[in-house]
């Protein structure tokens, strides 16, 4: 078994909420007096409160991280996922020594290089070459180390022509390329990366990702990676850690499983059907959605994990109150990175073929395209509106959602049956054109 390179024990971090300003001196003194002189516990810390961003607590001091324990082995690529404010960045900041933990201990073997931001310390007036040296030194490289890698760095960045131009004249893409190139050539045993890949054009992103994969699999270096892109985490990491409110929910090798759990919660079975529990009116005078689910062509309800070769229908039951010629009803389907795969509306086709809904109870059904989706879990949200006038249901705001997981049977080809690169994985005909 490989060696432990990072060992985190009972790590906690406290933050004080609210303003730090007038009044802090007196509070600091009170705190100091009670803690140091009289040996009491911190008077401003209330034990037993979790750090939930959307709830108002009584205490002014909260745990950003609480009793974190885990270890990372050499060569592992650990993905850290969780909601905003779950403590991911704080954890990375503590491991990279930017801020210090309140209690607990981290033991590290090997040099740590952290990339919490691309191009930290770049000076706009300096040339590309000068900035390579400056940035490299900030990241902990020695001067001769940088000199020996200079060619490689410039080559990787692809900005040879501009390397003696001040970086303030760079396009933002070039800037980022140069910065990442420096970071990618750091010789550290542990690399900490916080969502810096979300920059640069797709070509360069691919290059970065490839470089990071090389770093972990070929060179045996350890990576800690925080990202909101589940796709990247899944591709890059072989271990995954889910944080919620400063506590580790799970730390597992089953990256895909944990991502699913994070995205869709534990109760997987309840999300493939949505029922309007108390007949809420949902604030519009046109229709009330009653039920959303997936079914086969006979209307039989389906589970939420389906093979890509099945006929799947999206079904919505509604109670129509008023009919408006501009009324559109449909859905918007999102992938795991919260990208919209497509929108579909009942008014997509020519006008004669639009479904005629009647006042009263009514259903709308639409077939999901077969063999279009890649493997993964998708969210389908109700989308409805008055054309060019208003949203009735906006998936970014108030729509009900159901989930569907596509697994297996991506094509009949013997070669391509598993998840592949790309947002979608359509099966498209190929042929040799006839000779004229």
């Amino acid at each position, binding site marked *: 078994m490989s060696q*432990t390179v990072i*060992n985190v*024990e009972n790590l906690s971090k406290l*933050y*004080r909420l609210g303003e*730090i300003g007038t009044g*802090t*001196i007196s509070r600091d003194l009170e705190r100091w007096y009670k803690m140091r002189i009289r040996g009491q516990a911190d008077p401003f810390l209330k034990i037993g409160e979790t750090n939930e961003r959307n709830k108002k607590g009584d205490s002014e001091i909260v745990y950003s991280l609480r009793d974190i324990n885990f*270890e990372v082995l050499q060569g592992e690529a650990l993905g850290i996922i969780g909601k905003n404010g779950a403590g991911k960045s704080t954890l990375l*900041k*503590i*491991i*990279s*020594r*930017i*801020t*210090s*933990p*309140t*209690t*607990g*201990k*981290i*033991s*590290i*073997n*090997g*040099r*740590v290089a*952290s990339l*919490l*931001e691309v191009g*930290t*310390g770049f*000076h706009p*007036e*300096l040339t590309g070459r*000068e900035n390579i*040296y*400056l940035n490299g*030194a*900030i*990241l*902990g*490289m*020695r*001067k001769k180390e940088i000199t020996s890698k200079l060619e490689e760095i410039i080559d990787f960045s692809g900005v040879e022509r501009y390397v003696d131009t*001040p970086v303030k004249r760079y396009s933002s893409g070039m800037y980022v390329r140069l910065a990442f190139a420096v970071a990618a050539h750091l010789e550290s045993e542990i690399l900490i990366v916080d969502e810096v890949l979300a920059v640069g054009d797709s070509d360069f992103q691919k290059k970065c990702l490839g470089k990071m994969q090389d770093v972990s699999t070929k060179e045996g270096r350890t990576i800690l990676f925080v990202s909101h892109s589940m796709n990247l985490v899944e591709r890059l990491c072989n271990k995954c850690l889910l944080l919620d409110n400063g506590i580790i929910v799970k730390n597992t090798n089953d990256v895909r499983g944990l991502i699913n759990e994070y995205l869709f919660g534990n109760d997987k079975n309840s999300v493939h059907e949505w029922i309007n529990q108390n007949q809420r009116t949902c604030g519009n005078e046109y229709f009330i959605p009653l039920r959303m689910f997936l079914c086969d062509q006979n209307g039989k309800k389906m589970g939420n994990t389906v093979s890509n070769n099945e006929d799947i229908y999206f079904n919505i039951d509604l109670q129509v109150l008023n009919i408006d010629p501009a009324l559109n009803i449909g859905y918007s389907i999102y992938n795991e990175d919260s990208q919209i795969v497509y929108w579909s509306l009942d008014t997509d086709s020519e006008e004669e073929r639009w479904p005629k809904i009647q006042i009263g109870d009514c259903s709308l059904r639409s077939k999901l395209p077969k063999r279009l989706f890649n493997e993964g879990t998708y969210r389908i949200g109700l989308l409805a509106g008055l054309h060019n006038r208003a949203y009735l249901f906006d998936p970014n705001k108030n729509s009900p959602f159901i989930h569907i997981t596509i697994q297996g049977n991506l094509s009949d080809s013997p070669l391509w049956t598993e998840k592949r690169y790309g947002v979608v994985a359509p099966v498209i005909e190929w042929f040799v054109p006839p000779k004229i």
Partner: protein
Amino acid sequence: MDNKKPEVGWDLIIEGTSSLFDLKFRDVWRYRDLLLMFVKRDFVSFYKQTILGPLWFFIQPLFTTIIYTFVFGGLAHISTDGLPQPLFYLAGITAWNYFADCITKTSTVFRDNSNIFGKVYFPRLILPLSIVASNLVRFAVQMLLFLSMIAYYYWSGTVISSGWALLMFPVLVLMMALLGLGLGLIITAMTTKYRDLAFLVTFGVQLLMYATTVIYPLSAAPEKYKHLIELNPMTGIIEAFRYSFLGKGEFSTWSVGYSAIVTIIALFIGIIVFNKTEKTFVDTV
């Protein structure tokens, strides 16, 4: 899994509390290349896209000297210990500027660099040290101006009696640098939490100049306030500086020794407070 590993097996241990006196000098040494990079950056970015370039280093002390000669010498007739007025003022200004630059620039180091500090680790002490070092470059350039003015007066017949005391010069520069650094570190550490001090520094340093023997010699100070002025550690240094180059000034081993002690204490407290603040300042700034 067996978590009990021997403590010695780790390269780095991060804990919430560490010894107050763990000053991390080894780490600073390891990052010495970075210090040079910062100095180079400051120097290059100072004169890029300017027409006069490094000449600007001369212009500021030159004009200040002219104004002082006019106001304090010409209008107020303050004694200059028998020295030519421009020479007297330039000596004070050159030395004082170095100290003042060190203290004002270090005193905002946390605030000015919170962006870098929040994103990457390197021994934080590198930045204040680089400030002192790049000011040293500037000081060296300004010393050239001062020396050429001495040469000018020497050739035109003024008696300038500098002697063995010139050997003290490196020590004096070091003291100014470290005193500025030490005080700056204390101030920057405190301003991360209480911003008030930041406002105090800029005009505080300006006022302090009048409590130092920059525009008047110690010998001309009224008897009543003389002790107060001598309490200022910069007084001893500036008097000694003038004495070593121009041969005039109330120089005594006692006053330089006093300044040295204050310097060491300020530096020591400064580094400790700075290191303590550095660990969590990201959360408060």
